[in-house]
């Protein structure tokens, strides 16, 4: 139970109530339920989110906060921990080449399932559910959020209730990582619905996970309770509550007053970090995130086609000051788009240096001459461009103004044109209608290093491709390397490939890397099991391990 400053006005009333209906409330108030056995789930945790979870069918289009619910209600076949290691969940073992789960050519899969799993409504979980889930993901009529990888599956065969096999049309190394984010959904509940897009299941999900769905009060909270029949270890909490608090200042205040126990998602803003570490009864955790903040450059623009310009801009970027002064020194500077915890992170990339003089020299040598107004020009192209990001992100806006000054010193003119989120990340971003953008991107699906969606020349939407190569990167060597890396299954062999791609990106600089995100999370003292994981999108992924005293 949480230590809470009880509002004095209702203290006596509440006391009276407890005496009066104590017996009825015993199940809800762990303080009274002293006689409950230690092994049984007890206590509750209220998680504060600054965005509201609204999508509970894990295969429909959703944002990261929704996954905070998915991880607790559902299970994947196997998951991925903070070290990038897969662990079995609904599968009895993680399929690998060694144990015969995956054929050496990567084309044939055989997954053995646990035989002791039941859905929250008591129906046994079987291979039919796995087959149904994999088929639903590519169903023409279903608004599936993600088909990549699943599209390659053919001939799914249910060998027995605990064994399933399928073939893949081509080897696809990222698939295990995609599966580690793919939650199994019940055939009997969702498959019987007339339309899976509007099924009742989507409002009241039934999973196999450690917590069962109880209720949602729209705009307010979601209540889950312990699944007593959970197949694995845990859960230790009796109730798990996700509370929606849209304003970050209010979120932090309610964390201080004890109205919420865990502050997750965006967490505590950097400017409150110092104060937060001194709060009595709270623990503050600096959790690395896999997203990288960069100034992205649209290579389709004539200003950015000259590599000298991109190099000079990177040299003129005062990363240390940005991180120290604007982000209170919390995030770590980086040269790569992989998180530094990743096995595939290349440590040997050249370190960034802040050097205005050298930047000017490079531009002089490349023939960019200063005009009357001090802005450089070459072959009729002015070194002038716009920079956009989500309007209302104050720290980023300060960063833009700071960068604007630095760039001016090397004769580059940057104008700031920020847009509301719905506009910014619509066609404007996807169809490369921008000059330069400040953006934080998570390039990877879990621990897998594949970045084909982002770097392959076939992923340029503005040129008729399909992906998210909005920088319009077009490098045959990168294309070939990504093709190769996607078919290799031995991590050490793959690392060579992806190390090289990181080198090329560091050299070509389609985006100027600034830092790897770090989020300040907080929870009440005495809560155990809180474990940030850079390979998932949300810190509430392991609430089944959480304990309170």
């Amino acid at each position, binding site marked *: 139970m949480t230590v809470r400053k009880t509002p004095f006005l209702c203290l006596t009333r509440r006391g009276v109530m407890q005496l009066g209906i104590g017996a009825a409330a015993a199940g809800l108030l762990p303080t009274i339920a002293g006689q409950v056995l230690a092994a049984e789930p007890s206590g509750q945790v209220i998680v504060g989110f600054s965005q509201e979870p609204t999508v509970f069918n894990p295969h429909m289009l959703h944002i990261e906060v929704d996954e905070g619910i998915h991880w607790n209600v559902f299970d994947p076949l196997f998951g991925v921990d903070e070290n990038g290691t897969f662990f079995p969940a609904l599968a009895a073992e993680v399929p690998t080449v060694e144990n015969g789960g995956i054929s050496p050519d990567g084309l044939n899969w055989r997954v053995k399932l646990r035989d002791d799993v039941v859905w929250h409504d008591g129906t046994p979980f079987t291979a039919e559910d796995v087959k149904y889930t994999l088929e639903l993901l590519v169903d023409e009529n279903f608004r599936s959020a993600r088909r990549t990888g699943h599209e390659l599956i053919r001939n799914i065969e249910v060998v027995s209730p605990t064994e399933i096999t399928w073939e893949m049309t081509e080897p696809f190394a990222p698939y295990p990582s995609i599966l580690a984010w793919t939650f199994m959904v019940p055939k009997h509940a969702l498959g019987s619905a007339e339309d899976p897009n509007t099924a009742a299941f989507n409002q009241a999900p039934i999973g196999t996970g450690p917590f069962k769905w109880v209720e949602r009060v729209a705009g307010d909270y979601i209540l889950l309770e312990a699944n007593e029949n959970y197949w694995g270890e845990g859960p230790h909490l009796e109730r798990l509550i996700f509370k929606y608090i849209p304003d970050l200042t*209010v979120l932090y205040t309610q964390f201080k007053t004890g109205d919420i126990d865990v502050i997750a998602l965006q967490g505590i803003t950097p400017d409150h970090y110092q104060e937060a570490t001194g709060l009595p009864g709270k623990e503050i955790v600096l959790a690395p995130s896999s997203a990288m903040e960069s100034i992205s450059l649209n290579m389709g623009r004539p200003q950015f086609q000259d590599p000298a310009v991109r190099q000079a801009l990177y040299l003129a970027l005062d990363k240390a000051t940005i991180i120290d002064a604007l982000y209170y020194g919390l995030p770590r500077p980086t040269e790569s788009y992989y998180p530094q915890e990743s096995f595939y992170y290349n440590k040997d990339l050249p370190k960034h240096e802040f050097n205005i003089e050298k930047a000017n020299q490079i531009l002089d040598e490349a023939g960019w001459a200063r005009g009357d107004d001090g802005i450089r020009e070459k072959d009729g192209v002015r070194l002038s461009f716009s920079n956009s990001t989500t309007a209302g992100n104050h720290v980023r806006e300060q960063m833009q103004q700071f960068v604007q000054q630095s760039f001016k010193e090397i004769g580059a003119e940057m104008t700031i044109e920020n847009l509301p989120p719905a*506009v910014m990340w619509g066609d*404007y*971003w996807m169809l490369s209608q921008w000059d330069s953008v400040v953006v934080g991107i998570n390039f990877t699906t879990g621990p897998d290093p594949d970045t084909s969606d982002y770097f392959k020349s076939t992923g340029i939407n503005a040129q008729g491709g399909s992906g998210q190569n909005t920088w319009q990167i077009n490098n045959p060597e990168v294309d070939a390397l990504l093709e190769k890396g996607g078919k290799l299954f031995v991590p050490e062999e793959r690392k060579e490939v992806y190390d090289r791609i990181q080198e090329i990106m560091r050299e070509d600089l389609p985006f100027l890397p600034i830092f790897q995100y770090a989020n300040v999370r907080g929870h009440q003292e005495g809560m155990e099991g809180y474990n940030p994981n850079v390979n998932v999108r949300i810190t509430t992924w392991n609430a089944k391990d959480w304990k309170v005293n």
Partner: protein
Amino acid sequence: MSRYLIHRFGQSLVLLILVSLVGFMVLNLAPGGPLSQFALTPGMSQADLERIAAQMGLDRPLPIQYLDWFWRLFVGDWGNSFRDGVPVLEVIGRHLFATLLLMISSTIISVGIGTVVGVMGATRRYSLFDYTATVLAMVALSIPTFWFGLVAIYTFALDLGWLPAGNMYTIGDQSFADYATHLIMPSLVLALVNVAIWSRYMRSAMLDVIDQDFIRTARAKGLPRWRVLYLHVMRNALLPMITLAGLQLPTLLGGALVTETVFTWPGMGRLFLDSLGYQDYPVVMGLLMFSAMLVLVGNLLADILVALADPRVRLE
């Protein structure tokens, strides 16, 4: 009377259609769309977004989408929210309770205190009380609710620990006492500004009447002071207040965005902002129609009430 009502009803219908048409156009012509928030999801591609847009029917020409929406509305189907798939009327209904609770309690406080302060200010014009009330009303009107709310939270929740820092109830408790303690701070903060407004209106409405001849006549007849004040001055002064109350109805149900945000109150104001932020077209359109209807109903009610209160007014 019934002819008048039919006439007003017809007028309202035309207005509603116009409002929906303009609202739909503005909403859909604004750049971006309900799917752009998903663009930064790992592995998302433009092709995926286009496929889902087509599945949702968002790729159809706008006039077709509008007519489809309008026809469904006509037969009672307000559509489903893009965000959570819940029917729009249900979404509105779920948030309406929170808003009603907050707005009704704060309105009772503000109208009650506002009327008393206004009447006292008018009867003791240019007294110390009147000046103090005027200055305080100006101060209250100038304080941003956001700031005042946060100060209240810091004082009464964080420092003193007397009241909860926000929320409508303690999850799992939800007793009457629990609701009541959670209601105190937001309703008082919200009432503060409204007391100022109501007292100013009441004061000037009273002053308009108090100097008139028939009041002087009533006094000259030797009627007791309270009788003159309550039966003659106030009855007449209440007429503009009824109109004002009618105009306030949509505001009342529209929720108080700032107060709801500061006190994490799951009401209509926040629903509107969230739905707008996610470009949840069905909910935004639903809220637009809902509030347009409230404006029309509020005005109609006020007109009828004024007619009832004032025998001189005839509805034709």
